[in-house]
């Protein structure tokens, strides 16, 4: 029965079966559990985006793998005459056109879809000093990267600087990420936020956390000796917890407050350059 069908038909059948098996796994098992999780609005949209990418890639991957395995088994050289030539096919215009069309449409769709996702909420990425996707009424939080620690400033809370990152849940947060020396990168994994800390640059990223949890912060750009140790743990807490925390911090650091430069989106601290 198998041999009644042409190679093309068999391949189509195998690809379809393979896709039918794998696709539900992608949609229902892998997709929803993709990193970085569902704790924030941008993380959720990244998960959705990743799921769509997985879904689109599945038929292509299945086809190519099925094709290669099929060819290797079915189009094997004759044992008795291994040097016999294969079919003299130099090309097949309909196949080429079909491939070109399908891949072009797929790529254009991915680009448009990805751009739409990106522009809808910024996807937690650092958008530079002039972000195009913003969130209204966001609480600004400045992340200062320095060799080799992150510190955080809250301009709307008196410009207090803290060593811990604590955020109130269900509020849009506007991160302003900058650096005092080398290039670092602020990667708040479970929040789905990554923004490079470039010296002299204000890199803005938006996120609205929806779940109260702790999250990892890691430096994601090689910045010197202790790059691998430049990590922190942040917290998303309730409004009242946040208020009491930040008031506590303001009291705690009142002494240094007077020495801090006024809040600015970038800093050029003294001593500069090569001074000792």
């Amino acid at each position: 029965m198998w041999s009644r069908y042409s190679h093309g038909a068999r391949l189509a059948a195998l690809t379809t079966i393979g896709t039918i098996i794998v696709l539900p796994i992608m949609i229902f098992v892998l997709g929803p559990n993709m990193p970085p999780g569902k704790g924030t609005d941008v993380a959720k949209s990244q998960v959705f985006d990743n799921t769509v990418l997985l879904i689109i890639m599945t038929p292509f991957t299945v086809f190519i793998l099925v094709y290669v395995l099929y060819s290797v088994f079915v189009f094997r050289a004759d044992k008795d005459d291994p040097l016999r030539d294969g079919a003299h096919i130099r090309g097949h215009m309909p196949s080429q056109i079909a491939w070109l069309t399908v891949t072009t449409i797929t790529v254009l769709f991915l680009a448009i879809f990805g751009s739409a996702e990106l522009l809808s909420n910024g996807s937690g990425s650092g958008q530079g000093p002039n972000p195009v996707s913003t969130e209204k009424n966001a609480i600004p939080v400045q992340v200062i990267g320095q060799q080799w620690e992150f510190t955080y400033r809250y301009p709307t809370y008196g410009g207090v600087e803290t060593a811990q990152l604590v955020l109130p849940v269900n509020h849009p947060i506007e991160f302003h990420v900058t650096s005092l020396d080398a290039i670092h990168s602020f990667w708040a994994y479970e929040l789905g936020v990554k923004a490079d800390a470039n010296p002299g640059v204000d890199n803005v990223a938006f996120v609205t956390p929806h779940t109260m949890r702790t999250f990892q912060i890691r430096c994601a750009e090689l910045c010197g000796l202790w790059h691998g140790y430049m990590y922190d743990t942040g917290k998303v807490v309730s409004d009242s917890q946040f208020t009491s925390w930040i008031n506590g911090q303001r009291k705690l650091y009142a002494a240094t407050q007077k020495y801090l430069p006024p809040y600015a989106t970038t800093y050029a601290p003294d001593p500069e350059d090569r001074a000792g």
Partner: protein
Amino acid sequence: MSARRLLRFNMLTGMVLGVAGFFIGWWLGKFVGGPSLDYFDDTQQNDIALFTAYLVGVIGFLVGLGFANYPIQRMLGKPPSLREKETGGWGRYFSLCTDHKVVGIQYLWGIGAFIFIGGLNAMLIRFELLTPNQHGWNGNNYLTLVGVHGTMMMGMMTSGILGPFANYLVPIMIGARRMAFPRIEALTFWLLMAAGWILMTTFAFGGFPSGWTGYEPLADQANLGMDAYVAFFALVGLSMTLLGLNMIVTIITMRAPGMTWTRLPMFVWGTISTAVLMALAAPVLISTLLMVMMDRTAQSNFFNPQMGGSPYLYENLFWFFGHPEVYILALPGMGILLEIIPVFARKPVWGYRLAVTGMLGIGLLSFLVWQHHLFMSGMNADVRPFYMLSTELISLPTGFIFISALGTLWRGQIRLTVPMLFMLAWIFNFLIGGLSGVFLSDVPSDTTTHGSFFSMAHFHYTIMGGLLFAFFGGIYYWVPKMTGYRLNDRLGKWHFWIMFLSFNSTFGPLLVIGFLGMPRRAVTYAGYLQGANMWVSISAFVLGASMLLFLVNFVWSLVFAQVPAGDNPWASKSIEFQLPSPVPVHNFDRIPTFNPDPYPYGEGVTAGAAQRPAITPARPER
């Protein structure tokens, strides 16, 4: 005969003059730069001295090898010698030799040696990553290991296929007796060797902390060892530019009559696309490094934001080179893929023009995508969708290569020899590499994966899973032609399977680990990733062992067993296999007439064009 040649200019005299040059340059640099800049005193780091030491050292090395002989002879009015040391024994492999085949074999050994050093570093890195805490190498050394691994591999593998294989095969494949510029060809090799030794000296000067990308302003802060990185890459860039130019001129001007563009073997198309990229992108690298050097020595501030410079300048300049660079790594592999698959499927290349369009398209588009490395850096957010589109568009010409390879398998007569196995593995690995690239090109997805091990696994799948597998496929396929001896088949298959399985076992989980939040180049990681990292490290050790197995095969087959390969061990109809093994010095007795069909396989075609082997006559009467 050959011993006497050795007493004249060769690698030994080169090294002696190189070391002497190093000390002379050091003294010169101290004399020129030392007294004038206080900071040399404060930091105990005289970058000017080290750069001049490297410069004069390289010049001494090249003079010692004999590169100055031809210009000096000409200036003294002596008649020109066009060919140096092309006959003679094994001594010519250790000196300046203008026979393109010798240069190809020199490249094979030289690049092979440095790649093994890079691979050793990779094993040491994975050893450190067995536990989440730092337990192995002394603090600063981990970052230098990471940096030297990446830098050495990138610098060496850029010429990894063009150096050994294109130098050897391109003149043969186009019907020429030599490259357009044989002396420059030899120069590119020795520059690369000098560069490799310079990079290894970084350990004597404290190593460098920036990884292979050398981001400023960190690179400005770094110790003396950073200068070794700058000098290495500048020399590699110079070697690349010259190699690319040489290939382009050779392929355009030295094709035999009858070798028209539509008859070029796929390998040559892959070479010329790569060569164009090399010639255009490498100079950008050299200028960027010049700026880095000036920042480090003359205290300029190209990349220092507090004095008017910008780290963005570095990022953009570097990646403007860096992105074509990775296609320089990928394209030759594609050339080899489409060169070998027809032989072992015994069919012509399916969609020859489509594949060529694919290669040229990849080359063109590769210059339009570089900012995808900068998506998270705070670049202009309006421009990101453009780069997302251009990066996704590159998968179109890559798709042409894939469909061409797949079409060549259709209804073929597939022989699963060792080179063919490597080609099939290329298809699998590059598929995964390419798909992971689609994730990375998508900015929302990139927010999590940029700078993580997902990104690292992506480029290892494409560069190692693609290029290195093609490299090994090429070795098994062409070394019998180059040396006249077969490589052991059974050891080859063991090497392949262990390498393929351990490679996927190493980098597959890393795709996942990256998504789970592990940043690159970090010596510590979250505790819950330890199990996965141990699995990856152990797979990496097995992968390293497979390389040792390859070495055993290589040395055993070529030095001890020496089973003659014959002229055409693979029953290939391509031109190089119609010549004796190893190929004689002058390549052909008479310049051949080429078959209009570069891949004359396939039954069911009228006899005549398809049945003739690639050249006529195959062997002239003596």
